[in-house]
């Protein structure tokens, strides 16, 4: 340190004497003690006022500001994190809800399908039954008709034959003899007309 001071002194003394050769006063105005007291006095006043006002009024405000900001930022981060977890929970719930409703919809669909299939089956069965009944009724009718047909045919044949004979020979013929003939013919040709 002392070395430094000596160095500076040497440096400046040579520097200054070289520069201020032509100056009237010469030397450094800093070393003129005329205004030393005045400088110290005004330094105390200005620095004192500066120090007091800064430390009493201004610096606490800046400190408060910085701390307020810090705490506010921390608070904001906290609430943001809280809201994030809340949002995540809501999303989870939402997903669960969607999954559940999807399953439910599937169940509904399956149930409806089953019901419809059952319904169709039942209706088909009843329809089948009805159709069968109708068919059997119709069959019975047909069978009766088949049974009755020869008799009618015989009767028609007898009547037609007697009419024909009467027209041809103009004479009444005994019905019984015609029926005998028709019967005989019918018995002969039975297999030809109603063969099963």
């Amino acid at each position: 340190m002392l070395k430094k001071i000596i160095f500076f002194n040497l440096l400046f003394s040579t520097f200054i004497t070289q520069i201020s050769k032509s100056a009237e006063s010469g030397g450094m105005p800093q070393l003129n003690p005329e205004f030393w007291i005045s400088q110290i006095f005004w330094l105390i006043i200005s620095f004192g006022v500066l120090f007091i006002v800064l430390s009493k009024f201004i610096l606490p405000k800046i400190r408060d500001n910085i701390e307020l900001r810090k705490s506010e930022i921390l608070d904001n981060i906290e609430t943001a994190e809280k809201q994030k977890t809340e949002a995540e929970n809501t999303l989870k719930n939402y997903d669960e809800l969607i999954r559940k409703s999807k399953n439910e919809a599937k169940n509904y669909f399956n149930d409806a399908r089953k019901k419809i299939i059952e319904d169709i089956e039942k209706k088909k069965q009843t329809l089948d039954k009805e159709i069968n009944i109708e068919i059997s009724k119709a069959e019975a009718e047909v069978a009766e008709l088949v049974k009755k047909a020869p008799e009618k045919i015989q009767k028609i044949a007898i009547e037609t034959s007697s009419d024909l004979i009467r027209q041809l020979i103009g004479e009444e013929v005994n019905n019984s003899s015609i029926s005998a003939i028709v019967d005989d013919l019918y018995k002969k040709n039975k297999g030809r007309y109603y063969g099963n």
Partner: protein
Amino acid sequence: MAANPMTQFEVYRIGPEIKINQIDISFTNASLFMIISALSILLIFNLGSSKKNIIPTKIQLLAELSYSFISKMISDTAGNKGKPYFNLIFSLFMFVLFCNMFGMLPYSFTVTSHIIVTFFLAALIFIGVTVIGFIKHGFGYLKLFVPSGVPLVLLPLIVVIEIISYLSRPISLSVRLFANMMAGHTMMKVFGSFVISLGIVGGWLPLSFSVALTGLEILVAFLQAYVFAILTCIYLNDALNLHH
């Protein structure tokens, strides 16, 4: 030859002569710039602290960045124990910085280029630190002059050196600031006068030097304020945490 480069450091009376008991405390150009510096600091930091925005305005940002800059400097050098002295170190740094910076304006006066001002500040710090040291550690503070792990033979010599280095602290602190300011401003003045004397033909070289020096001097103005503040912190650290 151009004007004497030392005339810029002359102190002259502004207004009437004020005397209290034969002591001259007249208002001078030095006083004027001290008060201008102090008031500008107060104005800027008052503007910077009056609004409480979460997103700071530019001037608020300036105030808060300065605050955290000094705060970090203190906690880095003196630790948590240095916190009560924050206000003083902040004021010191800002005062020295603004005085240095106002000195950069043409036709202004550099308060810190006067040894009496810097020495008074340094003496204030020295006395304050010594008092704090004795309050915190009592006579144990004298252990500062006895480093541990020194051979017994060398001890008297070391103690003498330590005492001298301790006592020279205010001198080194004040001379560093004063000499830097004075040298820089003298150099600028000298180069400025070279510009005038060499005229339009040869004046460009010293002019470019002068421009470069202006940048350098602004850097030095900041750096010296920083050095002044950080050395205060280091001295304070010695007083608060006795390491030897």
